[in-house]
């Protein structure tokens, strides 16, 4: 039987761009170019490696996001995923992590899955909670923040490097996995992969397809409210000296002046 892998990927504003908030205090996704969250490339990579090891596997990439989020799906398809699902609906604007996990859970269930693979965190919201939320909603094991992962005989195993210990984990499928950027370099799409991706199917689903109401998602359905967002004042220009042989001593003098020594 085929191993059905769903990789959740997010379309995010480029971190090296001038990111800011829109007037409604949601992340501005219009003024800064977007891309597939780099941390989700690791999830796609691990999915491809797991699929390689399996006799028969199919990888679906899934995103919840605006129209341009198709770019993120294309990138994942050009890396080698088989097909894509784009959940897109005007009422989704402003959905928070709890809401996103609801939409993802419905979509994953509708698509059918044995294994969900997510990134460790999105590079815009950086919450790192969606995989745990998704596992809670689906009622399946969460095997998260793995720096190493493998699937064999219906069991997923992995290593989670925590603060105080490194743990070996194991769970039966179906399960939700997330992988860190320590899990192994993500491949670049090949020219062949980019050409092939153009022909791969991308399905588009809206809230109705998922049996969800507009009130459950979006800014209105969000269970958190951002009241204000202000730009951090730029750090005041400091003193910069060129080392002419006394740089270390000058720095020590500064640190002593600040009472660090």
């Amino acid at each position, binding site marked *: 039987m085929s191993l059905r892998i769903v990789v959740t990927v997010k379309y995010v504003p480029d971190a090296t761009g001038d990111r800011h908030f829109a007037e409604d*205090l949601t992340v501005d996704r219009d003024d800064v170019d977007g891309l597939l969250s780099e941390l989700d490339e690791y999830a796609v990579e691990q999915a491809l490696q797991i699929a390689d090891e399996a006799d028969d596997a199919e990888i679906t990439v899934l995103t919840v996001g605006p129209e341009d989020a198709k770019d993120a799906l294309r990138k994942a398809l050009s890396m080698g995923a088989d097909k894509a699902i784009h959940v897109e609906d005007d009422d989704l604007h402003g959905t928070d992590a709890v809401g996103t996990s609801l939409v993802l859970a419905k979509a994953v269930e509708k698509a059918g899955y044995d294994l969900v693979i997510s990134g460790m965190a999105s590079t815009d919201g950086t919450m790192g909670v969606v995989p745990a*939320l998704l596992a809670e909603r689906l009622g399946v094991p969460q095997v998260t923040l793995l720096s190493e992962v493998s699937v064999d005989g219906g069991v997923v195993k992995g290593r989670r*490097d925590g603060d105080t210990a490194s743990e070996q984990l194991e769970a039966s499928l179906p*399960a939700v996995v997330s992988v860190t950027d320590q899990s192994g370099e993500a491949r670049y799409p090949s020219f062949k992969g980019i050409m092939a991706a153009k022909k791969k199917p991308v399905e588009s689903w809206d809230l109705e397809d998922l049996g969800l109401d507009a009130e459950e998602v979006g800014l209105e359905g969000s269970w958190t409210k951002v009241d*204000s967002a*202000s730009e951090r004042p730029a750090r005041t220009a400091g003193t910069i000296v060129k080392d002419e042989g006394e740089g270390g001593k000058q720095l020590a003098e500064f640190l002593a002046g*600040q009472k660090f020594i």
Partner: protein
Amino acid sequence: MAEVLVYVDHVDGAVRKPTLELLTLARRIGEPVAVALGSGAEATAAALAEHGAVKVLTHDAAEYADYLVVPKVDALQAAYDAVSPAAVLVPSSAEGKEIAARLAIRIGSGIITDAVDLESGDEGPVATQSAFAASFTTKSRVSKGTPVITVKPNSAAVEAAPAAGAVEALSVSFSAQATGTRVTGRTPRESTGRPELTEAAIVVSGGRGVNGAENFAIIEALADSLGAAVGASRAAVDAGWYPHTNQVGQTGKSVSPQLYVASGISGAIQHRAGMQTSKTIVAINKDAEAPIFDLVDYGVVGDLFEVVPQLTEEITTRKG
């Protein structure tokens, strides 16, 4: 006064500093009731009482060590049901965030992660967060259910505020999901004897410019002269020169010490994301154009192999 649940992060009964900071913040909202789970749970009570916990709910079971995350969610939910708190506060560790998130879904509440400050407001607790690599500051609140908020280390001062801290046994029944993810092996991290990276008052970091694992001895020597923790950029970690646990930045630790010393680090946005809120920042880099110099209070343009040893020696001399 309303009670506030505080999830306790501890190692065999030794309470970690971020939890004590959490008690300071909890007292701004109500009366802290601590929840301590697993081996050594009861031993946490003295430190928690000293810092304001009116009650300490404890429970120990093999499940906490043998299975990932969910048993702790079950227990925190049991505490929630027993207390009906005004808010639930959890330290922002990787595990803490996952526990908090799952609890939020179960109790039908919104969740805020990685708060750096917390104050009480007319419509419930108001959390301050940093966004976009700490270039923005936001204020937000939970608008549905009981606020579940995770708070980053170094967000408040630890304050003594003696309270009763009466230990009460929490009764927990584990859910069907509790045993879903087995922990089949555990290798504890070896202690370096240096301060914990996220808790340290001073962090001394090295990057690609350090140019080799053996050269990190220079960075460690400087760190030791200042009693500091050692950090590394991802470039240094990816090169295998320093362990990933010491990585500072978006996919490593985020630190907010009194003093951050960057040597041979360019200051890429993902690195800044993890250190930009440090009080004082100094850098040593041979490239005057390196973006790290936009952040510094004091910068030395020079070769770290000259500047850092001289700095260490000068500090050692001054400290006598």
